[in-house]
């Protein structure tokens, strides 16, 4: 498939408002009917440094980010310096007065002429960018009107005025930049949101009504979104004193009938490990969102990595069931989080969503979620007829009826010790075996419910790229682009548990299996080896804090094949 997209990089320092420009641009393009995919790279600081906001857009679905740049909006000189090598030959540089762009196909913006004060420079940049991308001013004007409507008519007008002028100015320039193809569709119900927002919405759609969290990049916007959008829906929330409190408070709320969520990143999750074990033994549903960044320890707070799979796989002392989902794109963030809530309640055990900074900050256009066809989520009991009520009743499938305390006279007792069916502490060996086995037997149900990996491409390819979570897009585009050999992709959006029969044929049919992961040790591939005995032939690993791109995968492929 020929590439119909263009890739726009906006670069500058923190505090220059590039995320504002970028987000508005992406939103306008979504409204114009384009498909978009955003990649944000930024430093762990509030002002200064070097950040980028990248939008890939086109009339066809955009599955992956890319390294090549079509339009570079340089808000400072460093941006041009750092990114000029990725600029396509016919690429365009848009910049202000203070930058020397000699030798480039460039558009120098006379900011002072187009705006009365620096406050509006962002809008100028947006207008010029929109114009350069051959778009119409109208969508932008509406967008700005909506954005600033709360600030009053005067502000709206001023902004609209600036954007209009900027569009007009571009038209007068001689830019040798070929226009992007027109949008093919104009789906008015298309949303633009990023991975973290989609997780939050998926949770709300599942009925999530309790959030306890401690802020940690790059997870905080899940909490932000839940609060901003959820409190009107009845969500109760609290930013707590530490991550231990976050997990334990969510467990307490869940016990008392809330649908609880906890949001964090690897370091914060490390502090929740004991609490996870408590959820396991007390059989309390809990959904934990882990948005990864590079470790160990503080690592790189605003960068990306897929380095915490092992931690999440084995978090908690002792043995108990769980399931782990790893969305490959924004849409999956929504649906998998919804599913995690359903399974958490059904199996009364912890569920995890494993995302990372890349997807967290990656805006994409998605179809409007259809709430009416979403499956109903499992509900606990508010009453029971069977007396005495046994919270930890031994059942065939290991699932005991979970009742919420406070809605009848029946007492609900939950315990962190090894306990009997009534939650009484006991050190009896036979009881221990029964209860521990009961909990673990829930795995049989969870295995039945596993979402198998998605397979893209030929059944017997020369090379099969095995990936999970957020590396989906890069693999798909690399497979699509590679010439000379057939490359297929096997993408796991549920990474635990695994159900061998769902994918072993694919692994065995491929000429070679290459694991593609955003970490240094190939954690998922090793886990597949453990579960199936199948060991991959080679690895393409990235752990420099940046997301996997098609170019990076292709380079890896070339050195392997």
């Amino acid at each position: 498939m020929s590439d119909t997209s263009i890739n726009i990089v906006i670069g500058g320092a923190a505090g220059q408002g590039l995320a504002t420009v970028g987000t508005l641009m992406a939103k306008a393009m979504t409204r114009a009917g384009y498909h978009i995919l955003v990649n944000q790279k930024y430093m762990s600081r509030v002002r200064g440094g070097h950040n980028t906001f990248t939008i890939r857009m086109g009339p066809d679905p955009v599955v992956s980010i890319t390294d090549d740049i079509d339009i570079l909006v340089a808000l400072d000189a460093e941006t041009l310096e750092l990114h000029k090598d990725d600029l396509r030959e016919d690429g365009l540089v848009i910049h202000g007065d203070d930058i020397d762009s000699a030798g480039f196909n460039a558009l120098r913006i006379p900011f002072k002429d187009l705006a009365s004060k620096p406050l509006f420079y962002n809008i100028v940049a947006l207008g010029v960018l929109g114009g350069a991308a051959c778009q119409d001013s109208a969508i932008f004007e509406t967008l700005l009107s909506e954005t600033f409507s709360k600030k009053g008519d005067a502000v709206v007008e001023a902004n609209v005025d600036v954007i209009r002028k900027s569009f007009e100015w571009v038209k007068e320039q001689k830019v040798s930049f070929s226009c992007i193809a027109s949008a093919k569709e104009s789906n008015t119900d298309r949303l633009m949101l990023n991975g973290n927002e989609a997780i939050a919405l998926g949770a709300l759609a599942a009925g999530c009504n309790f959030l306890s969290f401690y802020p940690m990049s790059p997870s905080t916007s899940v909490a932000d979104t839940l609060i901003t959008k959820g409190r009107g829906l009845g969500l109760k929330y609290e930013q707590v004193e530490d991550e231990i409190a976050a997990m334990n408070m969510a467990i307490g709320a869940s016990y008392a009938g809330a649908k609880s969520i906890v949001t964090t990143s690897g370091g914060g999750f490390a502090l929740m490990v004991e609490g996870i074990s408590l959820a396991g033994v007390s059989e309390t549903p809990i959904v934990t969102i882990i948005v990864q960044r590079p470790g160990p320890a503080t690592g790189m707070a605003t960068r990306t990595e897929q380095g915490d799979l092992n931690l999440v796989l084995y978090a908690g002392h002792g043995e108990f069931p769980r399931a782990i989902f790893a969305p490959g794109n924004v849409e999956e963030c929504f649906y998998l989080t919804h599913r995690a809530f359903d399974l958490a309640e059904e199996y009364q055990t912890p569920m995890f969503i494993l995302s990372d900074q890349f997807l967290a900050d990656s805006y994409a256009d998605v179809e409007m979620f259809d709430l009416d066809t979403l499956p109903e989520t499992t509900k606990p009991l508010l009453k029971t007829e069977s007396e005495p009520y046994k919270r930890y009743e031994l059942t065939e499938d290991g699932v005991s009826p979970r009742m919420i305390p406070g809605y009848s006279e029946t007492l609900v007792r939950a315990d962190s010790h090894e306990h009997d069916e009534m939650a009484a502490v006991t050190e009896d060996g036979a009881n221990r075996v029964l209860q521990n086995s009961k909990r673990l037997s829930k795995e049989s149900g969870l295995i039945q419910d596993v979402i198998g990996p998605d397979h893209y491409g030929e059944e017997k390819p020369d090379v099969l790229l095995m990936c999970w979570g957020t590396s989906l897009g890069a693999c798909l585009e690399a497979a699509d682009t590679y010439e000379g050999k057939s490359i297929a992709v096997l993408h796991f959006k549920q990474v635990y548990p695994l159900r061998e029969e769902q994918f072993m044929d694919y692994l065995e049919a491929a000429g070679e299996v290459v694991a593609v992961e955003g970490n240094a040790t190939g954690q998922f591939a090793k886990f597949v080896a453990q579960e199936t005995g199948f060991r991959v032939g080679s690895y393409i690993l990235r752990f420099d804090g940046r997301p996997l791109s098609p170019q990076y995968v292709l380079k890896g492929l070339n050195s392997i094949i």
Partner: protein
Amino acid sequence: MVSIEQYGEFETSWCPGCGNFSIVKSLKKALTELDLAPHEVMVSAGIGQAAKTPHYMNCHMFNGLHGRSLPVAQGMKMANPEMTVICESGDGCSYGEGGNHFLAAIRRNLDITLLVHNNQIYGLTKGQASPTTVRGMVTKTQPDGAPSEGFNPITVAVAMKAGFVARAFSGEPDHLVETIKAAVNHKGFSLVDILQPCVSFNKVNTFAWYKERSYILEGHDTRDWCGAMEKADEFDEKIPLGIIYQNGRQPFSNVGQLATQSYNKDDLKAVLQSYR
């Protein structure tokens, strides 16, 4: 009318003579006198001898982790404000492992009651110094004497202007019952630090030791912060029992009956629309 029998009688694993017996009995009595039935009470407990309490009475129970009874209790209350929520734990649990939650719970001021069985020792793990152990006391793991100043939860709670701060003693059960009742009745976070002799591991702060120096406060102005600080500081020759400090701070209110609450689909649709 609730009767104390509804709370049941259980075999315990406590040592004969332990102060905990009197506390669990007083708690049942207080709840009964408040006309609260077992199904109207949720108890969150940590781990330790004290934390075994909800196993020895009928009530809703979540017996969680060492040091974490407060976050669990607060989660419960946020998800079901209709319930009376009581947090049961020891001095190690509440002021040691759980110290950070103690500070946060005071600040947050959810309407829950924290009962600390303060035996000034780690009982269940067999006699190490706890945060409230007196400086210099020799134990197996503190052979040179506990090196840190003992923690006085009352001074800290009063300093932070907790809504309800009281001290009681397992050896004064009638007073203990009344104090628990006042604490449960208080709207907001209430702390009752209960002196509790550990007959097995604390040979210094014994029943006699507490009996000798504790006295029930009378004529004390619980609304006077400065006076309360002074009373809070008394823990030596004399130990005052009773409500040390009380105020009318507004309790945390971001709570709801979450088990029966579901969102309006149109509202969520509107939220989704905001991403267009």
